[in-house]
């Protein structure tokens, strides 16, 4: 069976593995197709528009690539940011710096991690059922797989 669903934001997977939407604008001013972003709240919604979790954003946090952001647990939001457009001309392949900015629900930055990914790659990171984050970063000797432990509280 094929259903047509309303778009409530950026489609994403919720921490329990279901379809959710990362909504970057308050529900009351966003229409169903809106991907607008007012810069103060990020909400993770169920398909029925109910709010799973909500995060405040400080004015100084700029989400330049919101479609890459994800919610590993209901307590934390990970903004994936490209630090700058600089491409590091590695001898083997051009690489680009990315940064995981982990925010709590109050919008405080609680952790930052940096990684180097090949230009053109899509999503070299993932989570598990506990919300831990795994990522691939290109190091001089090879592709390193790392884990960020996320507190359960």
């Amino acid at each position, binding site marked *: 069976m094929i259903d047509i669903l309303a778009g409530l934001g950026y489609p994403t997977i919720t921490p329990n593995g279901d379809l959710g939407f990362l909504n970057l604008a308050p529900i009351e001013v966003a229409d169903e197709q809106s991907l607008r972003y007012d810069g103060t709240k990020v909400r993770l919604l169920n398909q029925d528009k109910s709010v799973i979790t909500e995060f405040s954003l400080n004015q100084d946090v700029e989400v330049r690539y919101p479609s890459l952001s994800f919610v590993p647990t209901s307590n934390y939001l990970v903004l994936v940011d490209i630090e700058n457009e600089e491409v590091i001309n590695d001898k083997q392949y051009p690489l680009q710096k990315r940064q995981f900015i982990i925010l709590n629900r109050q919008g405080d930055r609680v952790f930052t991690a940096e990684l180097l990914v090949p230009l053109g790659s*899509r999503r070299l990171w993932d989570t598990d059922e506990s919300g831990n984050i*795994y990522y691939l970063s290109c190091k001089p000797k090879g592709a390193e797989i790392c884990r960020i432990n996320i507190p359960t509280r």
Partner: protein
Amino acid sequence: MMRRWLSCVMSWMLLCAAWVNAQFSTTPLFTVPYGTAANQNSLVKGSTQTEGDFVDSEYPFLLRRLRTGEFLILSKRKSGLFVQIFNSSGQLQRSWECNESIGDLYSLEVDRQGRLYCLRYLEGRNLQNGQTKQQILSIYDNNGKQISNNDYDKLLLENLMNIKFEFPILDLVVDRKGVVYIPVINPSKE
């Protein structure tokens, strides 16, 4: 007395710092060395440039942690897509090649069971004539065998035509039950 008090305070501060650091930490698990062997990761800058992209370049493209605790790395190789599955210690468990060309694909996804979903570009296709020579969505199991979904593909095409579908936006999403979601622009709702 003062010295003892200071010592206690210092110890408490050190304990607090250690506790805060223990909350969030990054742990390297394993490294896949560069190279073209099955248990290596290829990172090669190609020589044939088309629209700013090196079509014959090779690089890791997507990472997925599987339900089994294994890691799947999907890479772009000259011959097509290359899938490697490593255990949590970094030992290669299996690998397979897929002849899909990344240039033909709008979006790719891998679910937690290791199934690969390939969504092709639709622009330029004769949708009105129900062109189904090449599938819109191809699915491969975690051993690289293509899963037949001809009926679903036909239904998908019909649905896209019914909503006067224009083109997909964003990447496809697959939930824990294997249900596939394809974000598209629906002009009638704009």
